[in-house]
C-alpha cells in the first residue's frame, strides 16, 4: 500500500505545484511508482509544469462523475518510468468534487502506486479540504516571508485538527545572500516559528523558471541547485538521512558544508 502525501501552503504562489512536479520526478528516479494528483480544480497547471498538457483526455472530475475509469484518466510520463499524472479539470470548479470522493480516488491510487502526491490549491476552503481528505502526511511549502510563514502556521493548525500527523516543512525560494545581509528570514527563523520538522530547503533558482516554461521539471536533469534540493527531499521521504546543504556563495561553500556535516 502506497503513501498519500498532500503538498500544501495556505498562501498562493509559493511553489506547491513546482514542488509536486519535482518531487514526483525525483521519487520516480529512485524507482518508485509515483502518481501526481492535481487537486487545483479550475486552475490546473501541474500538467503544464510537467509538459503533459497535450495528452489530457479525461480528468479528476470525469473520474468522480463516472465518465471514465481512473485508469483511463492517468497519464504516464514517457520520459520517466513510473511517473503518472491525474490531471484536474479546467472547466469545473472546486465544488465539483467532495472530500469523500477525493478519498475514494486516493484509496484506489495507493493500491497501485508507492507514492501519491496531491497538489493542493491555495487557501483553506473546499479545495484545500478536498486535497487533504485522503492524505496520510502533509508537506508544507513556505517561502521566507512573514505572510507565507503565518499562513503555513494556520495550515499546520488545520492539519492537526484534521488529525493528519505532524507536517514537514519545505522552505522554498531561499536567497542565502539576502539571509546573510539580514534582509530575509533564515531557515532557522522559520523552523523556530513553525516548530515542525524540516524536510527540505530549495534555493531561489532561475532554472525553475526556465524548466517550468519548457515543461521539464528541473529535477529531470542534473545541474540545477533546486533540482538537487528536490532530489534530497525525495530521499528524506524514503527515510534516508541526507545532510542539508547550505546554499552559500561558491567561494565559502566548501568550508560551510564541512561545518554543516560536522566534519570540520
Amino acid at each position: 500500500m502506497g503513501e498519500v502525501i498532500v503538498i500544501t501552503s495556505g498562501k498562493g504562489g509559493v511553489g506547491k505545484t513546482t514542488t509536486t512536479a519535482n518531487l514526483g520526478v525525483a521519487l520516480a528516479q529512485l524507482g518508485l511508482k509515483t502518481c501526481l494528483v492535481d487537486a487545483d480544480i479550475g486552475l490546473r497547471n501541474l500538467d503544464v509544469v510537467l509538459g503533459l498538457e497535450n495528452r489530457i483526455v479525461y480528468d479528476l472530475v470525469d473520474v468522480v462523475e463516472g465518465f471514465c475509469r481512473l485508469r483511463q484518466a492517468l497519464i504516464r510520463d514517457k520520459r520517466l518510468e513510473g511517473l503518472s499524472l491525474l490531471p484536474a479539470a479546467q472547466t469545473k470548479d472546486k465544488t465539483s468534487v467532495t472530500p469523500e470522493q477525493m478519498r475514494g480516488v486516493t484509496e484506489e491510487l495507493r493500491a497501485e502506486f508507492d507514492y501519491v502526491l496531491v497538489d493542493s490549491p491555495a487557501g483553506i476552503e473546499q479545495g484545500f479540504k478536498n486535497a487533504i481528505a485522503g492524505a496520510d502526511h502533509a508537506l508544507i511549502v513556505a517561502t521566507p516571508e512573514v505572510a507565507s510563514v503565518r499562513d503555513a502556521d494556520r495550515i499546520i493548525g488545520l492539519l492537526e485538527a484534521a488529525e493528519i500527523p505532524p507536517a514537514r516543512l519545505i522552505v522554498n525560494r531561499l536567497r542565502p545572500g539576502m539571509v546573510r545581509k539580514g534582509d530575509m528570514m533564515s531557515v532557522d527563523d522559520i523552523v523556530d516559528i513553525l516548530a515542525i520538522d524540516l524536510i527540505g530547503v530549495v534555493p531561489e533558482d532561475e532554472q525553475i523558471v526556465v524548466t517550468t516554461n519548457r515543461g521539464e521539471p528541473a529535477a529531470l536533469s542534473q545541474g540545477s541547485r533546486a533540482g538537487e534540493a528536490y532530489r534530497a527531499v525525495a530521499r528524506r521521504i524514503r527515510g534516508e538521512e541526507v545532510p542539508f546543504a547550505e546554499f552559500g556563495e561558491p567561494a565559502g561553500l566548501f568550508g560551510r558544508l564541512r561545518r554543516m556535516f560536522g566534519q570540520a
Partner: protein
Amino acid sequence: MSQVTHASEDVGRDGSRREAALYVRRTLRAGQRIAHDGDVVVLGDVHAGAEIRAAGDVLVFGQLRGVVHAGADGGDGAMVCAWRLQPLQLRIGHVIARPPDAYEDVPDAPEIARVEHGQVVIERAARPEDGRMARG
C-alpha cells in the same frame, strides 16, 4: 486566598467568581482562538496570529507571540505571565500595549505583565539568584 471554591469555579483576586481555569495542553497556531470566562493556562506556545481572551489571568508555559487579552471583562487587576513574553499585542483590562518593534532585548526568562497606574509594566517572574517565583 483561603476561600473555599466549587470544583467548577474559581475566585478571582478581586473576589469575583468565574469558571475554573482552562488548561490548553497544546500549542496555539495562527488563526486559533481561545475565549474563556476565567483564567487560561497554556502548556505550549502561543504563535503569532493566535488569540486568547480570558476574563482572568493568562499563563503561558512557553513562548507567547500572539495576541492576549487578560481581564477581558474589564479587570485591570489581571496579569499575563509567559516563559518568553513577546506578544504582538497585550491587553489587560482596559489597557492596550504594543511592545517595541524589535525584540532583541527580550530576556531569556519568564516575565509577568500587569497594569500599574494605567500602564502595562513587565517584570521578571523569577530571579535567577534565588530560583523561585517573585511575589506580586
